[in-house]
C-alpha cells in the first residue's frame, strides 16, 4: 500500500473523491468539511456551517455540487465554485449518517438514525420518498450504480435492498408530477409503494455499519460490529450470503469493492485497513495505524486511489504502484503490460507483444533492465516484504507472433534489483544488500564488496550507481572501487542521457543533474512528486511531476512546459514530441512547445544567432523574459526585447552598450540619465559621449576638465568665454590657467580686484608693460609673496598623445562592446576557461614534477638496498624453479591456419590466391583455363592476396594479429572455411560500362586493356548458381569480341593504304569487324566505317549490305538519312568493283592473330579461356586476346563455382 497523501485534522467521518479533479472532500467530527487537493497536497477550501459532526458527504458527478449530512439533522447542498451552501433540506429527525447523489436523477439519498432512508429531489428541494422498515439506526444507504436499487445497512443487524423503480416511474416518466411527501408516506392511493423492500439480508449478528453494491456484478459487501465483512449475492427473487471475511478484531466501519479488481477493502476500529481477495476470501494486505481507529473508506470512481478517514485525519493511498516497468534502447521502447513484454518502435509507432511473461507473482513488475546485445531483459518484482523480491532473466525470442507471443522459460532468483553491467554480466543486489555479479546463465561469477547500499542503478558498462540513505555512489564493478559520491536523499530513479555524459537523479521531491563523474551540476527542488524524465537530443532534461511536464538545463535553469491531467511516465523526447506511457500502460505522444528551453539553452551555449532568430520569430517577448535575461546576465540579449526606453537605457548601461544607451538617453532626456551615461562613457573612454552628457547637464567644470585632458584647446577657450559670460570668475580663471593664457589671467585678477596677484602674474611671466601699469594701481610693498609661475600646461597638439591615446581607448571600448553584442561572448568565456585550465595544468605538472622528484630519491635508496640484499641472479630457488619449468615446457608446433584450410577446401583458383598459395593457384589456372604466361596476372594476384587478411592489434607494440574473413563464416566451423572473395560478378559487369565508354570515345588501346583485365578476372570469381556461371561465360565472350575487334581495328589503322591491295586489305578488315559481336551503338560506328570504305572502293553491293544492316540498328536520324542516300546510290549499281576475301553470307570465325576469316568447317584452334579462334599454325602460342593462355591447350575448363565440381 502506497500512501500518497495524509492530513491531520479532527476525526474524519465522511469522504468523497471528485470524479475528475484531484480533490477529495473530508467531513469532520467537528462540523467542518475540508476540500483537499491530494496531488498538490493543499487544503483548497473549508466549509463550516454544520453544527456537530458531519458524516455524509458526496460530490455530484457533473455539477459543481456536493451534499453533506450532519448530526444537526440537516442535509446541505453546496456549490464549491460559489463556495457556499445553496440550501438545506430538513426532514430527518435524528443524526444523518450518509448522503449520496444519484448518478443520473436529481436525487439525494440519506440515511438517518431516525430509522428512515429518504430520497430528496435537489432540484425541487423536496423529499420525494421515505423508506421505512429498519428498526434501528440506518447507518448507510447507497444507490445502485446502474439499477433502480438501494442498499442500506442498519444497526438492526440487517442489510436491506430496496426497489425504487416505482419512484422512478412515477416521478420521472414524462408528464409525471412529483408529489411532495409529507410525513411518512410513500404509499399512493392505490397501495403501490414507490419503494419496496426487495431483500432483507440477515447474517450479521451485530449492527451493520456499511453496505455497498458491486459496480458491475450483483454483489453486496457489508461490514458490521460483529467484526466481519460479508459478501452477499442477489438475483431477481432472492439474495443470500456468499461468504465472510474474518480478521478484523473490532467493529468494521466500512467495506467497499475495488472498482476494477477482484478485491474488497475494509477498515475498522481495530486501526487497520484490510484488503481481501474476493474469490479466495483471504486477506491480502493489512495496513495498520498505531493509534487511530478507521471510520470511513472512499474509492475513486476512475483512478486507482482510495481514501480512509480515521481519528486524527485522513490518508489517500493506492494499493500498488502504477508505474509501468520500461526500458528504452535506441528507437525501441520495451515495457510490461498485462503479463506481456511489449516493444514499441518510436519511429514507426509499431507496438508489438514480443513475449509472454511467466506468471506466478502476484506483484507487478517493478523495474526492467534491457540488454540490446543479447536481446535479454531483467524484470524485477518487489514483494511487500522486500526480502521476498525476485527477478527474472528472460531471453527475448527472436521471432514472435504478436497475437500470441511465446512464453519463454525465464530464470528466476531472489534479489531486490538486477541490472546489466555488461553485455554478458548483470549485477544483483540481494536481500542481504550485497552485490552479486552473474552471467547469462544466472550463475554467480563473483561477489563484490560494496559500501552499504539499498538500491542499485545502471551506470554504463562496468559501473553501477549505488544508493544509500543519503547519497549515490558511482561504483566501478571491475575495479571494485567507488569513483565518486554525491549527496542526495532517497534517489528513486536514474536517467542517463543517450551518450551517458549526464545523469539525472530523481528523488521524491528533488532532481539532481550530474555529469559522468557524478559531479553535481544542479539541484532542483519540486513541491510536487517527481515522476519520470528523459533527455532530449540537445541535452535538456525533460521531466514530469504529478501535474506538469517540465524542463531542466544542466545549468540549473528549469521551468514548466505544460500541465498534465494525470501523471505520465516519459520514455523519450524528440523535437516537439514527448513519448510517454500513461498509468494504463498505453504509449502516448504529447506535443510540447520547446521554445522556452531551447531559447535558454541557446543562451547558455551563447549561440546568439539562434537566440536572435528565436527572438524574432517566436512569441517570447514579455516582462518575465526580460527580467530573466537581466537576472541571468544577458542584458545584451534583453536589449532586443525592450521597447521601454528607461529599461532599455539601464540594460544598455549594464551591458556597456553606449550607443544604445545614448539613443535611449536622447529619447528620455533626463538629467539623471545623462549623468549616469556620462560616468559610464567616461569609464569606457567614450569622450565624445561624455562631452555630450556634460553639455546636456551643463556641468561646466567637468566639461572644462574634459577638454583639458582631451587637449581640445579650442573648446577649452570657448569654455573660458562661457565662464566669463556666466561671470563664473573661478571657472574663468581655471580655464585661463589651463590654457596658459597669462594675459587673460592678469585681466581676470585685475577685474576682480586682485591687483597684487595680477601684478605678480604679469611680472612672473615677463609682461613688463602690464606689470608696470599694475604696479601703479597698488602698493607693491604690502605684497611680499613672490610667485614663481611656470606655464602650467604644455600647449598640446590637438592630435597629440592624449587625444590619440584616448581615442584609441575609446575605439577599443567600442569594439569590446560590439563583441559583446554580436559575436558570441563565448570566446571571452572560452578564453577565461582555457586560461584557468592552463593554469591548473601547469599547477598539476608542477606538483607532479615535485612529487616525482621526491619519489625518485626514495626509489634510488630502495634500489640500493635491494641490490645489496638479494641480487636476482643469486636467487637460487627462483632460478631452479624457472629452470625446472623450462625443462618440461615444450613449445607447441604451428597449427593449421585458415588459409591452409581454404586450399584444402577449394579447387577454385581465387581461393588459393587469397590463401597466398600462388603455386597451387597457378597450377589450377593452368589446368583449368590453360594459363601459361602469368605476368599479366601479377597485379590481380597481389590485389587479391591483399584482401585476404584483416588485422587487429593485440598487446601494444607487438606485431598485429591477423584475421581471415570467410564467406561461409556463419556455418563453416573450424575446418570448412572458405575465404570471402571480394570480387563480384556484378562489379565486373558494371566495369564493362567504362570499357564501352572508352570504345565509344575511340580510345581503343585503353579499352582493350580494361576488357582484358575483366576477362582475366573472370577465372577469379566465385559464383553460386548456374545462371551466374553462364553470365560469367558470357562476360568472357563480350570481352573477347571487343578485344578481337578493337585490336584488329587498331592494327588496321596502322596499315598503309597506298596500293589497291593494301586498300583491299583495309576494307576486308573493316568488314570482318562488322562481324564481331558488339553493342548496337558500337556496331553503328563499325558499319559506317565499313560502309564508307566499301563505297569508296566502289564495292557497292557489299556496301549496300552494310547500309541495310546499319539501318536495321535504328541509328540517329541524320545518320539514317545519310545512310539511305548512300544506299540509294549503291542500289543504282549493285555490283562490287573488286574481289575481296569477304563473304557476308558464309559464316566464319575470325582468326585473332592473322585477322583472316576461318569459314565454317575449316580447322580451328581455340583459346581455352577466351574462346578466341586461330588458324592451326598458331597452336601452342600465347593467345592474342588474353595474353596469358596457350592457344589450343587441352584443359578442364573454366571453374568459378563449387557447383562445377559436383
Amino acid at each position, binding site marked *: 500500500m502506497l500512501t500518497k497523501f495524509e492530513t491531520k485534522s479532527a476525526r474524519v467521518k465522511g469522504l468523497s473523491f471528485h470524479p475528475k479533479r484531484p480533490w477529495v472532500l473530508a467531513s469532520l467530527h467537528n462540523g467542518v468539511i475540508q476540500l483537499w487537493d491530494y496531488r498538490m497536497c493543499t487544503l483548497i477550501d473549508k466549509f463550516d456551517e454544520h453544527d456537530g459532526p458531519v458524516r455524509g458527504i458526496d460530490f455530484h458527478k457533473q455539477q459543481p455540487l456536493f451534499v453533506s449530512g450532519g448530526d444537526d439533522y440537516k442535509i446541505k447542498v453546496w456549490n464549491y465554485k460559489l463556495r457556499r451552501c445553496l440550501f438545506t433540506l430538513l426532514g430527518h429527525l435524528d443524526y444523518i449518517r450518509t448522503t449520496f447523489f444519484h448518478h443520473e436523477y436529481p436525487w439525494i439519498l440519506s440515511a438517518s438514525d431516525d430509522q428512515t432512508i429518504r430520497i430528496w429531489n435537489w432540484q425541487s428541494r423536496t423529499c420525494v420518498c421515505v423508506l421505512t422498515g429498519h428498526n434501528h439506526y440506518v447507518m448507510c444507504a447507497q444507490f445502485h450504480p446502474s439499477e433502480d436499487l438501494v442498499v442500506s445497512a442498519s444497526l438492526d443487524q440487517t442489510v436491506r435492498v430496496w426497489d425504487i423503480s416505482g419512484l422512478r416511474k412515477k416521478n420521472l416518466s414524462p408528464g409525471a408530477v412529483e408529489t411532495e411527501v409529507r410525513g411518512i408516506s410513500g404509499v399512493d392511493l392505490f397501495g403501490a409503494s414507490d419503494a419496496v423492500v426487495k431483500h432483507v439480508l440477515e447474517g450479521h449478528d451485530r449492527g451493520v455499519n456499511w453496505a455497498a453494491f458491486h459496480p458491475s456484478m450483483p454483489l453486496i459487501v457489508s461490514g458490521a460490529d460483529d467484526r466481519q465483512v460479508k459478501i452477499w449475492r442477489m438475483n431477481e427473487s432472492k439474495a443470500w450470503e456468499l461468504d465472510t471475511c474474518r480478521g478484523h478484531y473490532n467493529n468494521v466501519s466500512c467495506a467497499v469493492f475495488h472498482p476494477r479488481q477482484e478485491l474488497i477493502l475494509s477498515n475498522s476500529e481495530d486501526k487497520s485497513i484490510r484488503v481481501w481477495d474476493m474469490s479466495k476470501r483471504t486477506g491480502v494486505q493489512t495496513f495498520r495505524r498505531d493509534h487511530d481507529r478507521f471510520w470511513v473508506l472512499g474509492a475513486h470512481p476512475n483512478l486507482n486511489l482510495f481514501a480512509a478517514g480515521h481519528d486524527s485525519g485522513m490518508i489517500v493511498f493506492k494499493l500498488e504502484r502504477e508505474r509501468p516497468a520500461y526500458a528504452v534502447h535506441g528507437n525501441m521502447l520495451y515495457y510490461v503490460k498485462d503479463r506481456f513484454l511489449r516493444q514499441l518502435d518510436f519511429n514507426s509507432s509499431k507496438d508489438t507483444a514480443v513475449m509472454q511473461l511467466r506468471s506466478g507473482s502476484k506483484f507487478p513488475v517493478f523495474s526492467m533492465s534491457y540488454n540490446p546485445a543479447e536481446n535479454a531483459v531483467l524484470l524485477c518484482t518487489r514483494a511487500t516484504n522486500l526480502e521476498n523480491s525476485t527477478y527474472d532473466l528472460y531471453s527475448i525470442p527472436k521471432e514472435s507472433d504478436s497475437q500470441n507471443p511465446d512464453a519463454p522459460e525465464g530464470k528466476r532468483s531472489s534479489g531486490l534489483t538486477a541490472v546489466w553491467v555488461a*553485455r554478458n554480466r548483470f549485477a544483483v543486489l540481494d536481500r542481504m544488500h550485497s552485490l552479486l555479479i552473474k552471467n547469462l546463465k544466472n550463475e554467480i*561469477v563473483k561477489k563484490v564488496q560494496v559500501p552499504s547500499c539499498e538500491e542499485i542503478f545502471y551506470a554504463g558498462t562496468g559501473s553501477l550507481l549505488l544508493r544509500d540513505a543519503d547519497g549515490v555512489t558511482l561504483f566501478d564493478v571491475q575495479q571494485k572501487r567507488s569513483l565518486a559520491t554525491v549527496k542526495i536523499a532517497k534517489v528513486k530513479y536514474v536517467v542517463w542521457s543517450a551518450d551517458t555524459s549526464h545523469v539525472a537523479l530523481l528523488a521524491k521531491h528533488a532532481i539532481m543533474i550530474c555529469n559522468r563523474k557524478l559531479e553535481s551540476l544542479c539541484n532542483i527542488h519540486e513541491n510536487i512528486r517527481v515522476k519520470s524524465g528523459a533527455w532530449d537530443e540537445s541535452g535538456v532534461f525533460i521531466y514530469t511531476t504529478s501535474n506538469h511536464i517540465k524542463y531542466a538545463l544542466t545549468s540549473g535553469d528549469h521551468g514548466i512546459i505544460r500541465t498534465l491531467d494525470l501523471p505520465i511516465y516519459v520514455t523519450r523526447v524528440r523535437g516537439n514530441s514527448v513519448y510517454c506511457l500513461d498509468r494504463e500502460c498505453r504509449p502516448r505522444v504529447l506535443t510540447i512547445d520547446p521554445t522556452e528551453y531551447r531559447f535558454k539553452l541557446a543562451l547558455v551555449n551563447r549561440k546568439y544567432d539562434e537566440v536572435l532568430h528565436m527572438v524574432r520569430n517566436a512569441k517570447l517577448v514579455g516582462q518575465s523574459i526580460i527580467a530573466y535575461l537581466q537576472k541571468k546576465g544577458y542584458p545584451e540579449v534583453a536589449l532586443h526585447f525592450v521597447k521601454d526606453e528607461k529599461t532599455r537605457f539601464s540594460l544598455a548601461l549594464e551591458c556597456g552598450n553606449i550607443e544604445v544607451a545614448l539613443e535611449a538617453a536622447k529619447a528620455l532626456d533626463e538629467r539623471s540619465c545623462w549623468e549616469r551615461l556620462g560616468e559610464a562613457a567616461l569609464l569606457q573612454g567614450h569622450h565624445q559621449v561624455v562631452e555630450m552628457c556634460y553639455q546636456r547637464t551643463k556641468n561646466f567644470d567637468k566639461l572644462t576638465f574634459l577638454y583639458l585632458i582631451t587637449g581640445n584647446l579650442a573648446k577649452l577657450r570657448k569654455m573660458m568665454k562661457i565662464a566669463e559670460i556666466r561671470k563664473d570668475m573661478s571657472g574663468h580663471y581655471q580655464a585661463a590657467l589651463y590654457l596658459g593664457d597669462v594675459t587673460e589671467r592678469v585681466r581676470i585678477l585685475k577685474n576682480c580686484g586682485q591687483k597684487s596677484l595680477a601684478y605678480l602674474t604679469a611680472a612672473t611671466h615677463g609682461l613688463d608693460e602690464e606689470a608696470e601699469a599694475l604696479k601703479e594701481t597698488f602698493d607693491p610693498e604690502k605684497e611680499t609673496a613672490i610667485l614663481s609661475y611656470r606655464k602650467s600646461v604644455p600647449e598640446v597638439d590637438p592630435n597629440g598623445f592624449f587625444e590619440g591615446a584616448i581615442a584609441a581607448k575609446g575605439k577599443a571600448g567600442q569594439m569590446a562592446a560590439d563583441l559583446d553584442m554580436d559575436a558570441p561572448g563565448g570566446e571571452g568565456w572560452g578564453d577565461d576557461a582555457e586560461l584557468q585550465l592552463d593554469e591548473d595544468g601547469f599547477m598539476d605538472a608542477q606538483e607532479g614534477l615535485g612529487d616525482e622528484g621526491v619519489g625518485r630519491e626514495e626509489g634510488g635508496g630502495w634500489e640500493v638496498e635491494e641490490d645489496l640484499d638479494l641480487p636476482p641472479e643469486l636467487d637460487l630457488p627462483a632460478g631452479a624453479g624457472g629452470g625446472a619449468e623450462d625443462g618440461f615446457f615444450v613449445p607447441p608446433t604451428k597449427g593449421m*591456419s585458415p588459409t591452409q584450410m581454404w586450399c584444402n577446401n577449394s579447387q577454385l583458383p581465387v581461393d588459393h590466391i587469397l590463401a597466398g598459395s*600462388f603455386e597451387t593457384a597457378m597450377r589450377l589456372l593452368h589446368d583449368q583455363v590453360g594459363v601459361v604466361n*602469368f605476368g599479366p596476372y601479377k597485379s590481380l594476384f597481389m590485389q587479391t592476396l*591483399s584482401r585476404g587478411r584483416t588485422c587487429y*592489434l593485440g598487446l601494444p607494440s607487438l*606485431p598485429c594479429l591477423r*584475421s581471415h574473413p570467410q564467406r561461409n563464416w556463419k556455418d563453416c566451423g573450424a575446418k570448412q572455411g572458405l575465404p570471402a572473395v571480394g570480387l563480384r560478378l556484378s562489379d565486373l559487369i558494371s566495369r564493362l560500362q567504362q570499357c564501352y565508354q572508352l570504345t565509344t570515345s575511340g580510345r581503343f588501346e585503353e579499352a582493350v586493356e580494361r576488357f582484358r583485365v575483366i576477362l582475366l578476372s573472370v577465372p577469379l570469381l566465385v559464383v553460386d548458381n548456374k545462371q551466374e556461371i553462364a553470365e560469367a561465360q558470357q562476360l568472357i565472350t563480350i570481352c573477347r569480341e571487343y578485344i578481337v575487334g578493337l585490336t584488329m581495328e587498331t592494327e588496321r589503322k596502322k596499315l598503309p593504304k597506298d596500293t589497291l591491295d593494301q586498300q583491299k586489305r583495309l576494307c576486308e578488315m573493316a568488314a570482318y569487324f562488322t562481324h564481331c559481336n558488339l553493342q548496337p551503338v558500337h556496331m553503328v560506328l563499325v558499319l559506317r566505317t565499313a560502309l564508307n570504305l566499301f563505297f569508296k572502293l566502289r564495292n557497292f553491293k557489299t556496301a549496300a549490305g552494310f547500309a541495310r544492316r546499319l539501318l536495321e540498328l535504328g541509328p540517329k536520324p541524320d545518320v539514317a538519312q545519310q545512310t539511305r542516300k548512300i544506299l540509294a546510290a549503291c542500289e543504282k549499281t549493285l555490283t562490287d568493283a573488286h574481289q575481296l576475301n569477304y563473304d557476308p553470307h558464309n559464316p566464319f570465325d575470325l582468326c585473332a592473330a592473322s585477322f583472316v576469316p576461318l569459314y565454317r568447317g575449316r580447322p580451328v584452334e581455340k583459346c581455352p579461356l577466351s574462346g578466341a579462334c586461330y588458324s592451326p599454325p598458331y597452336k601452342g602460342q600465347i593467345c592474342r586476346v588474353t595474353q596469358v593462355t*596457350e592457344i589450343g591447350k587441352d584443359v578442364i575448363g573454366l571453374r568459378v563455382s563449387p557447383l562445377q565440381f559436383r
Partner: protein
Amino acid sequence: MDPARPLLVQHEENGDVDELFDVKNAYYIGSYQQCINEAQKVKPTSPEKETERDMFLYRAYIAQRKYAVVLDDIKTNSPPELQAVRMFAEYLSSQNKRDAIVADLDKKMAKSVDAANTTFLLMAGSIYYHEMNTDAALRTLHQGESLECMAMTIQVLLSLDRVDLARKELKKMQEQDEDATLTQLATAWVNIAVGGEKLQDAYYIFQEMSDKYSSTLLLLNGQAACYMAQNKWEEAEGVLQEALDKDSSHPETLINLIVLTQHMGKAPEVTSRYLSQLKDAHRAHPFLKDYLAKENEFDRLVMQYAPTATA
C-alpha cells in the same frame, strides 16, 4: 586460495584497489597519451608501484614510437624492470642493433632468470615475438604468471594458429580475473580466431570498452576486424573511417582499408592508394614484408610456365 597464485591477484581479491588501474587500462586499450597523462597524474603509494607506473609510462612512449624518451630517461641505475623496458625500446629503435640485442638476450635467457621480474619476461617475449621466434617467446612467457604474460602467450599462440591452446590459456586468465581488461581483450582475440557466432561477442567487447573508456585505434580496428570477418563491409567502413580520422597513416587501419575497399567493390585505384600510403610510411611493417616476399615468389613461379610455341 591456491598458494601458487601470484601476489598481484591476491591484492585484488582482498578488495584492494589498484591505484594504477587507469594507467594500465589506458595502456592496454591503446590510449597511450592518456596512459602517459594518467601516469603523470597518479601518485604511487610505494616505490614498487612507482616502478610499475614508470614501466607503463615508458611502454606507452614506446607504443607511440617515442623511443628516445625512453632511452634517455632510463639510466643504468634504474630498477631492473625499467632496464628491460629500455632494452625493448632499443631493440625497436634501431634495425641494425637488433641482432646484438637478441644475442645478448639469448645469453641472459640461458642463465636462470628472475621469474618475478615480469617486465623482463614480457620485454623478452616481445622481442622474440618480433623476431618471430615463437618458441623462445613462449618459453619465456611461460615462466611468468601475470595476466599480461598469459595475454601475450595467447597472442603468440594465435599467430601460430593454435586456437586450441590459446583457449586453454584464456581459461587460465579467466580463472584469475575474468573481468580484467586484459582478459576481456584476450577473449576478443580468441573469439575472432574462433569465428562464427563468437565474432559478435568479440565485437561487443571492443564496443563496450570504447563506450566505457574511449575509442582508440586498437579498439576500432578490433571492431573492424570483427565486422569484416562477418562480411559486414558497410559497418566496417564506418568504423575504419573513424580510425582514419584519428590517424590517417596508422598501418593497421590502412591494411584493413585495403581489404575493405576491395570487398566493397570500389575502384582498384582506391585500394592502391592505401597501399602506396602504407609503402610510404611503414616500409618495415610485416604486412609489406610479406607482400614483397609474395611478389618475389610470384616472379619466381612465373618462370615455371611457358607456352609450347612462340610467335
